[in-house]
């Protein structure tokens, strides 16, 4: 009798799966037959009458009755089955510990998430579900429809209006699936080690640490991937809110515990790009338009200055060539120096480089934050003062930030002058010209000229006053680095082309040669990109989906201006080091 009742149960399943309007009774009826077969059997059923005799031969089941198609269920179907919406389903999964499964054969398509049928059935009559349904109804029915739609529909079918600005997991999934330049990131991180050349270190990419920040601030560190497909698969599957890139370790970071057993811990970072992080929030005492995490076009020139100063110095002074500037997604910029020489710097050498750049000192309790002692400025500082800082300060920042507009701001500048007589003199003059009805634009400039004139007019050749004008300009414009990020090899930094979870903006590269034109408010956002993706019809000529969106400009810039020259240098380095090795071994042979 067992097989037949089983068949009956299966029959019911099929019905259930096809019928969209499941009711509760049928769910219970379905899940029970295995345990209480008799209760549900109708004695008059023709099937039952045949029970005592065994079936003579195995009857092949109908489609979707057996195997993967019957064992697993996609998320949409599960949601329909349980008669809840996506967010409630998520809650249920978290509360009850239901995990997604990886069927061997994904019957409904590769990009979908699957759950085990038994898991879903087990929770179908959970009392919690009933409670969730009630709260769900209370929460309003408007969002429900949207959620369900976005879930698994292809983006092309979505309505244009449904892309709200901001950040959304479902958008992110599409972004990682279609737009994120996995291959480019992989090429970059391999540094030419993915080739066929004999000098290539095949384990190189696999020793690189990646780290993902998932939804709900779950933080996965020490991830490593062996190939492009591994990386791509993991990103698409986990859909991380943030991808961080760490150093290349001596051994595979995922297996670090295996190596930690020995007496000498061999697990240590061996290579890492020289990175810099500049945050707008560090400039809060010299900008009046916004504070904290906000940026606008009036304070962005500070970042432009930082890029210009750092980029020239890294190229001219330190001789680096492969430098990537990236918008951090909200309030700052990141810099990746990728030359082989830069990647192999020790912690101490890294510290020395950031110290070289550091002019700004002192904490909250010190009025004067920049001091430039000595008879002359270091050539690097002198150069950036005349080439960048002075121009930006006088032409842009004085007016945009209205640095001399009111008492408080004036006091802040006057505090930087060590001479009391000059301070009172200036204060009187500024007080006077307030009454003169000069236009608002001018007053800042006039006051600055007065200050400059008074300090440089030869009358005051006092020690300490000589540098005062420079010191003011330096404190208001010179780049302020987050030093800790650059000092140690194992500091993580967000990967380019990530999406910032708060703003939805993509972290795109910035061209240092025209960084004046970069506008943080107009970078591609997640919603904008999906809208563009949606608009363009299918095009045969296009290989990558990103070519249809405004991301193409950035990816192309990344490829042509950064990746290609970098890989070329890597190849040359590889070949020369390989030839040297060959030569050496030859020499030792003849000897």
């Amino acid at each position: 009798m067992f097989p037949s009742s089983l068949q009956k149960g299966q029959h019911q399943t099929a019905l259930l799966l096809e019928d969209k309007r499941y009711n509760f009774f049928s769910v219970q009826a379905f899940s029970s037959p295995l345990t209480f077969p008799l209760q549900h059997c109708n004695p008059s059923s023709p099937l039952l009458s045949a029970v005592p005799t065994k079936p003579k031969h195995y009857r092949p089941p109908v489609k979707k009755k057996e195997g993967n198609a019957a064992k697993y269920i996609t998320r949409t179907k599960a949601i329909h089955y349980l008669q809840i919406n996506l967010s409630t389903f998520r809650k249920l999964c978290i509360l009850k510990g239901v995990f997604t499964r990886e069927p061997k054969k994904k019957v409904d398509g590769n990009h979908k998430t699957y759950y085990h049928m038994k898991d879903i059935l087990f929770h179908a009559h959970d009392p919690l579900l009933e409670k969730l349904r009630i709260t769900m109804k209370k929460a309003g029915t408007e969002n429900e429809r949207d959620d369900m739609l976005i879930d698994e529909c292809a983006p092309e079918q979505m309505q244009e209006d449904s892309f709200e600005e901001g950040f959304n997991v479902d958008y992110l999934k599409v972004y990682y699936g279609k737009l994120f330049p996995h291959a480019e990131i992989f090429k970059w991180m391999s540094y030419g080690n993915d080739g066929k050349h004999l000098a290539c270190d095949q384990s190189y990419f696999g020793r690189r640490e990646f780290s993902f920040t998932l939804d709900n601030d779950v933080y996965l560190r020490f991830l490593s991937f062996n190939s492009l497909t591994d990386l791509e698969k993991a990103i698409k599957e986990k859909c991380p809110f943030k991808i961080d890139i760490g150093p290349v370790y001596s051994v595979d970071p995922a297996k670090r515990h295996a190596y930690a057993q020995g007496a000498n811990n061999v697990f240590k970072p061996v290579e890492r790009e020289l990175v810099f992080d500049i945050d707008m929030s560090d400039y809060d005492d010299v900008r009046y338009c916004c504070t904290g995490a906000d940026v606008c076009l009036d304070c962005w020139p500070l970042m432009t200055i930082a890029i210009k100063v750092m980029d020239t110095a890294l190229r001219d002074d330190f001789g680096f060539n492969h430098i990537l500037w990236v918008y951090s997604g909200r309030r700052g910029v990141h810099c990746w120096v990728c030359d082989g020489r830069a990647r192999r710097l020790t912690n101490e050498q890294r510290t020395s480089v950031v110290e070289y750049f550091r002019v700004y000192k002192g904490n909250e309790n010190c009025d004067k934050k920049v001091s430039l002692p000595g008879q002359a400025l270091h050539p690097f500082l002198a150069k950036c003062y005349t080439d960048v800082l002075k121009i930006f300060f006088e032409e842009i920042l004085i007016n945009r930030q209205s640095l001399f507009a009111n008492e408080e701001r004036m006091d802040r500048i006057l505090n930087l002058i060590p001479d009391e007589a000059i301070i009172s003199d200036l204060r009187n003059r500024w007080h006077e010209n307030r009454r003169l009805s000069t236009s608002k634009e001018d007053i800042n400039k006039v006051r600055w000229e007065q200050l400059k004139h008074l300090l440089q007019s030869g009358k005051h050749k006092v020690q300490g006053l000589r540098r005062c004008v420079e010191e003011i300009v330096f404190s208001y414009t010179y780049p302020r680095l987050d030093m800790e990020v650059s000092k140690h090899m194992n500091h993580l930094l967000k990967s380019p082309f990530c999406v910032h979870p708060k703003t939805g903006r993509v972290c795109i590269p910035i061209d240092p040669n025209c960084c004046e034109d970069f506008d943080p408010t107009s970078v591609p956002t997640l919603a904008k990109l999906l809208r563009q993706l949606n608009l363009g019809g299918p095009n045969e000529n296009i290989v990558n989906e990103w070519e249809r969106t405004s991301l193409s400009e950035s990816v192309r810039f990344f490829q042509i201006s950064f990746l290609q020259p970098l890989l070329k240098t890597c190849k040359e380095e590889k070949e020369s080091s390989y030839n040297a090795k060959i030569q050496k071994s030859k020499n030792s042979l003849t000897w």
Partner: protein
Amino acid sequence: MEVLRSQRKVVGPETVPTLPLYRSAPQLEVRLEDFELYAIDRLRVLKGLSDGLSRGKKPEEMEKLASELWKTHMRHQNISEAHNKDIISHFVLRLVYCRTEDLRRWFLSMETTLFRYRFRLESLDAQRMLMSEFNLPYKALSHTEFESVREKLAQVARSIGQPIPINDAIFFKVPFEEVPELVAGRRVFIFKGYAYVAMSQIVSLVVTQYRSLLSKALVLTNRKWMSTIQTEEKYRLTPIVESLSTSYLGPDYNQAKEFTEISLKDIDQVAHSSFPLCMRHLFEKLRENHHLKHGGRMQLGLFLKGVGLNLEDALVFWKAEFSKKVGAERFDKEYAYTVRHNYGKEGKRTDYTPYGCQKIISSTPGVGDHHGCPYRHFSEDNLRAALGKMGVSGRALDDIIEKARKQHYQLACTLTFEAIHATSCDSGINHPNLYFSESQKILQPKQSQSIT
């Protein structure tokens, strides 16, 4: 190097008056007594240097200090004997300080400092000889090259207050990686990855080389010690070595011992009476803003741990403050981890030790930071105000400000201690937790008297 018991049979090499590079252990026989005595003498020198550094002495003062220390402790009637003593003591200490990462780091930095100042005292010719011993591949700048960058070199020289290079000045063109300290101080001209190092700065180049040699040697010694020497010499050398390494580093205040625990309710009162200014300032800022940036959290958090605040109380303490600004939920998510991390309950599970004065003084607080040493990082007016709030005034206040101006930060701190507690403190303050425990030592009896 062989160690003999009470037999004198030293076969020294021919007298080499210059600074040794300690490339390989000498084939000498040493008496066991000397073995220990020499090492202790050298340790005195290193310890003196370490104190000098933490007092924030300037290079010129350090140079004087180094030569004085060397003369008092390491001199010997016989020149070759003195040379031997130098080498022997170095290798003994190498053995002593190779065993853990912390010991190695301390030894490395002190030996490098010693080497630096001894190198500077050598004559020019001797310096050049030492340079050639390192086999550095760098050639002096040719005349045409010198002319092409002359202007820039002059500019650098003026910016650091050195005489302007003349025609026959010797400059070396080296990769900037080789001279990190010159790069960090912006004391050299750098162009296309090469630093132009003047002859007077060559010490940095040599020191880097010396340091890397010694660092590698220490790791090797450690391996050897672990694998063979430790067991072979179990009864003879091991006890000496182990006692030597523990004797001079000073306590690290990892666990509070004398005053078992402080509880949350009297933390305010204790902060008022016994915290040094750096911690008091952080504490007040925390109460005021309900937030501290990372550097401040580390400095105060580890100090409180050293004072005896246990993990549960620490979590309650930080949560109470932070939740007023960022909310309890965000605290649990973002900040609680660091607190537990400090107590060795997360991640690497290292039990971190509280910051010492040297570390605090050398820290570099940025915008919005409140950590660091007030005597160094405050402007004079702010320092005056802060000290006034602590109840210091008059002569004492001026003395403290004077010391801070002269960069004797720890002396300034000691003076503050004396002014507040109205006693003298001979040992000096070199750790915030020392300040706290000394203060408690004075205050505790008084309290118990007043209670009874």
